[in-house]
């Protein structure tokens, strides 16, 4: 995944979130075999942008080699939730989103 693609992803994603009013974003990086610091920061940025637009982000399918590279680069991606695969990621999104909804209702009443 090269830099321009990552920037395009950023634009497209924020656009889609606003169009569809999505509450959750699942980013599947299982076919990403290598990352560099740019991609790492990109992922963090995308998660932050989505949160600003009231959508939770979960990154799934990270390969062991990629995880080790990110750790060595010092990019721990704080604030980015992760899950092992798409199923677990969807479950995590579901529980997170419903928790927020509930807390919203409680705060309202």
């Amino acid at each position, binding site marked *: 995944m090269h830099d321009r693609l990552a920037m395009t992803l950023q634009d497209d994603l924020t656009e889609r979130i606003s169009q569809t009013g999505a509450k959750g974003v699942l980013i599947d990086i299982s076919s990403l075999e290598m990352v560099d610091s740019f991609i790492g920061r990109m992922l963090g940025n995308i998660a932050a942008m989505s949160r600003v637009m009231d959508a939770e982000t979960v990154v*799934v399918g990270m390969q*062991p080699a990629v995880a080790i590279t990110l*750790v060595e680069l010092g990019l721990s991606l704080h604030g980015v939730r992760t*899950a*092992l*695969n798409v199923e677990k990621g969807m479950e995590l999104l579901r529980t997170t989103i419903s928790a927020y909804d509930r807390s919203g209702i409680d705060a309202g009443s």
Partner: protein
Amino acid sequence: MSLIATILKQHEAEILNEWLRDMGESTRRTDLISDAALKEQAKRFLRLFQEAAQGNNLADVNGPHWSAVRDMLTDISGSRAQQGFSPGETAMFVFSLKKPLFAQLRRNLAKDTDGLADETWAVTQLLDKLGLYTTEVYQRTRNEIIVRQQQEMLELSTPVIKLWEGILAVPLIGTLDSARTQVVMEALLQQIVSTGSGVAIIDITGVPTVDTLTAQHLLKTVTAARLMGADCIISGIRPQIAQTIVHLGVALGEVVTKASLADAFAQALKRTGQTVVKLGGQ
């Protein structure tokens, strides 16, 4: 054909018998090799030696003429190392050939003292080089064994165990340096993927001391696991370790720590939505 090659061809059986007899006096090791096997080895060596010596190039042991002899010596050296021979005993196999060869040379060159001295010197040099070659091969084999064992020790000392459905345990034993951390990380992440586990318990009961570097390595492992979607719990924090961590000001951040593996396991069960129930008494 060189003189020594001719002598070997004409008196092969005689030289073989004398050689085997002389070998018996030094280091025969009948406990490690049978007489028949030893005779086979000696015979094969003599034959290859004779063929190589025909080439008249007695000085260059590393050349192509002597490659068959070198290969055979590599074979013997390797197998003897595994059988338990000392390198000296293996080298003696070659050196003990000197006596019968010199005896034959003396018989052949009785009238020619200069020629005898030259030939003796040439043969001595040759056999010395071949004998030393066996010790070099021996050393190389031992080194390979050591390297392989080191690798095995590294792998053995970092097992990743499946404690329960979705729960992994990594009992760390010994010091945690950067090399081991790498091995632990790779093994743990691989297991997280293959078992689909959501929780990993890293037990450091067997880690003698935790300094800032060790703590860094631990945190790296925890972060890597988290990136893959698995939570980590560090257990086995001994009282001394707890004191050291606070004194050093090591920032554990949000990492959950428990004193014992049992507590960590209970926590892990809770996190995966499970619990242990005692069956009603009958």
